[in-house]
């Protein structure tokens, strides 16, 4: 560690050639040993005595529900969080707690779900950030060349190193974040929900990189909710529940249902509810030749009580379609009706008045006021300037709020708790719940189950189906093909801003959705 600290003062090496201290570890022994990790935040014990180890060349999965402590463990390994007690050793040497820099010097790199990129910087600047010693000159030109080489080496030629990160799609940002972590040729790579926004080809890309890394003797800690991915990539795994290790598993020795029961601590099966039978032919929303930025002429018709899935690869116009339909982005259409009423040039304010609700992509930035209470976040769309707000309004709406919190089983101490204190899945439930039982005609969902745990997903599926039963039309963009196939009446797949295929009935299969998103129109 002492030499690592000296190393901190001299300029760090260029990307791809880090001067890792050669720890005295031999390939036979464990690369990472975590012993009795404990982390408490005030009265809350996020992690209570977690021990595990990871061997060189191994992919270790950490699974568990939201709030089980996975992210805290990952952050402790990355040096971003100091454990309250316990020890971590990498390659036989104790890890410097609470110092990301020292962790990195020991060969530990991390890609987080909550992206750690600077949105106003270019891809090249973000890629050179971790190794750019502040005392060294910075050359735009060199960084762009280096970034282009790096992206080329990692098989990401479609990302422009000069592009500002904020203009990239979430999936591309995640790819950049992963590439940045990989650029250090880590001994230990931690992927904390790093695949949550990736589409199937993106995940395949990630697995390719992981296999390259493990072939060189590196290890990967893979934190994910996607059991399919874990089945494919993980050699071993540990299940966390309530901050403790609830069980371990090795490749091929488990089923989805077993793992879910282990995570939930109860018998639970992965289960998709069927879409409810439609009782009416009424049209909730119809739009002809909708054009907006990234949307090049889309015709859609949504029936009342229908669940319409939107599929396709990230960046093919799904996000833009939902924003345009809600009026959050300027859009024009030849004809556009909501519940039979003509609409033109809508805005979010008017959309809410017309009976449209929208669950945006990024719950933290676009969905919630994190410094405000749970109850007030539910009420955001329903604040009227001249009516009551604050606590009197909360107590007046108590029945509705309690109904929503109960129906979605939101884990909260009550409507007055700050929404920022909730876990990601519970925050997502708030963004969704604010539209429930508010006589909506159409609800637009942007991947509401991204990065939330299995139980929360199940609760959201049921809530979505319940809404459809009440006659609400639902447009649901999902990156999980299984959700589209199982829970939707009909799926529309977008490709380059237009509808490439519409799948329903027997044609609605996972292969058909994936095929269509690659631009192949299946034979009818």
């Amino acid at each position, binding site marked *: *560690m*002492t030499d*690592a*600290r000296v190393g*901190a003062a001299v300029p760090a090496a260029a990307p791809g050639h880090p001067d890792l201290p050669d720890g005295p570890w031999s390939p036979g022994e464990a690369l990472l040993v975590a012993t009795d990790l404990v982390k408490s935040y*005030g*009265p809350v014990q996020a992690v209570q005595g977690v021990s595990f180890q990871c061997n060189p060349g191994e992919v270790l999965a950490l699974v568990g529900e939201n709030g089980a402590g996975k992210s805290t463990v990952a952050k402790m390994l990355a*040096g*971003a*969080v*100091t454990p*309250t007690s316990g020890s971590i050793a990498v390659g036989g*040497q*104790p890890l*410097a*707690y*609470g*110092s*990301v*820099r*020292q962790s990195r010097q020991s060969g530990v790199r991390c890609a987080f779900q909550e992206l750690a990129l600077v949105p106003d910087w270019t891809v090249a600047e973000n890629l050179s950030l971790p190794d750019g010693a502040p005392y060294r000159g910075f050359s735009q030109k060199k960084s762009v060349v280096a970034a282009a080489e790096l992206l080329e080496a990692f098989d990401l030629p479609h990302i422009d190193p000069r592009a500002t990160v904020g203009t990239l799609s979430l999936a591309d940002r995640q790819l950049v974040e992963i590439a940045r972590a990989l650029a250090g040729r880590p001994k230990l790579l931690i992927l904390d929900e790093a695949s949550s926004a990736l589409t199937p080809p993106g995940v395949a890309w990630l697995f390719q990189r992981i296999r390259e890394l493990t072939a060189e003797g590196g290890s990967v800690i893979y934190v994910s909710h996607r059991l399919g991915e874990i089945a494919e990539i993980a050699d071993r795994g540990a299940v966390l529940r309530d901050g403790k290790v609830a069980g371990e598993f090795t490749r091929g020795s488990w089923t989805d249902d077993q793992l879910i029961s282990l995570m939930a601590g109860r018998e639970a099966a992965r289960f998709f509810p069927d879409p409810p039978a439609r009782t009416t032919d009424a049209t909730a929303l119809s739009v002809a030749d909708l054009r907006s930025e990234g949307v090049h002429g889309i015709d859609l018709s949504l029936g009342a009580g229908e669940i319409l899935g939107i599929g396709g690869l990230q960046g093919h116009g799904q996000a833009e379609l939902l924003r345009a339909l*809600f009026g*959050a982005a300027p859009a024009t259409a030849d004809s556009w009706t909501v519940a039979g009423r003509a609409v033109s040039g809508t805005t*979010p*304010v008017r*959309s*809410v*008045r017309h009976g449209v609700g*929208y669950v*945006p992509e990024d719950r933290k*930035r*676009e*969905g*919630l*006021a*994190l*410094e*405000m209470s749970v109850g*007030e976040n539910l*009420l*955001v*769309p329903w*604040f*009227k*300037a*001249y*009516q*009551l*707000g*604050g*606590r*009197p*309004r909360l107590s007046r709406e108590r029945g509705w709020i309690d109904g929503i919190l109960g129906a979605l089983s939101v884990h909260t101490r009550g409507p007055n708790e700050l929404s920022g204190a909730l876990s990601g899945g519970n925050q997502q439930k708030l963004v969704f719940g*604010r539209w429930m039982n508010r006589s909506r005609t159409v609800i637009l969902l942007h991947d509401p189950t991204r990065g939330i745990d299995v139980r929360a997903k199940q609760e959201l599926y049921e809530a979505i189906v319940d809404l459809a039963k009440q006659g609400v039309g639902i447009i649901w963009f999902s990156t999980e093909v299984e959700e589209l196939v199982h829970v939707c009446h009909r799926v529309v797949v977008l490709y380059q801003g237009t509808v490439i295929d519409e799948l329903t009935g027997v044609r609605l299969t996972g292969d058909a959705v994936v095929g269509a998103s690659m631009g192949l129109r299946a034979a009818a």
Partner: protein
Amino acid sequence: MTSSAVPASQSPAGEPRGKPLGWSSARRVGSRVPRSIWPLIAFLVLFVIGGLIRPNLITVDSLIGTATFAIILSIASFGQTIAVIQAGIDLSVPNTIAFSALTFLGLVGPLGPAGAFSAALVAGAVIGLLNGVVISKLGLTPIVTTIAMNGLLFGVILLVFNFSELTAIPEFILAITSAKISVLGLETAAVLPLGLALMAVLQLVLSFTGWGRSLFVVGSAAEAARLGGLPVDRIRIGGYVLSGVLAAFAGVVIVGYYQQASATMGASYLLSSVAAVVVGGASIFGGRGSVVGTVGGALVLAQVSTLVAVLNLGANIQQLIYGVIILLVISLYGRRANN
């Protein structure tokens, strides 16, 4: 191995080390106390310190004197509070004060006191409307827009107003500001109950109306407010209009209390209005703040200026101390916001 672990665990870089448990539990208790209480505690501490230096400072009269000074600063800072809550700032407060005060005095002759008073408030509303429209519709940053407005107003003041003939101050303005009244046997200037009443009304609006809560949502997460279907631009513009009206009201109150007006009468409120809001616990990043807290912040600043006067340090030192206080408070509160 052991020897190499020691420097690592004392690494100066990165997060603070694990703190003793006592600190975290103290912090837990601390976080339950409403934020607007802290400035009041700070004020009491300063009051006692003043008493230790000069025992004759601990009197009801001295308290009322400080409170009167503080309430005038508070009235000038209420608008600023609203601007800061919605993640903006209103640096046009100083010259809005001067402009409305001079408008009031200039129009008392032709329009009468009530007409002139309304005209002053309308002037403030128009200034706020311009600020709000430029910020929300044209997308300029609040700091640039309002500081430009402040400069523009100063030019207008110098061009329009003739300082040689300022009329006498109307009776009813004196009655609500500088007139001595007796409350519960204590003699105070009328401005003190006036300011407290205004505080109560504004706090009720901020805490318990849809508009007030929308203002907090916009300040806390503007994009979330927009996608939740709130009329963000309208709420923002409304906030700046209210901020302008309150600054204009402060201008009239200051005229009434000090019974003088000049082009630079608002200048000292540029720093001190921001200071009162920030010391009062508002987040400069928006979404948090209260007018009760602002009154507490103003009390702290007023007590500081009393101490500065007692110790004979001079006005320059007072500005310096205000600056230090702002930095101190922002560094304290800003850190908590990150956790």
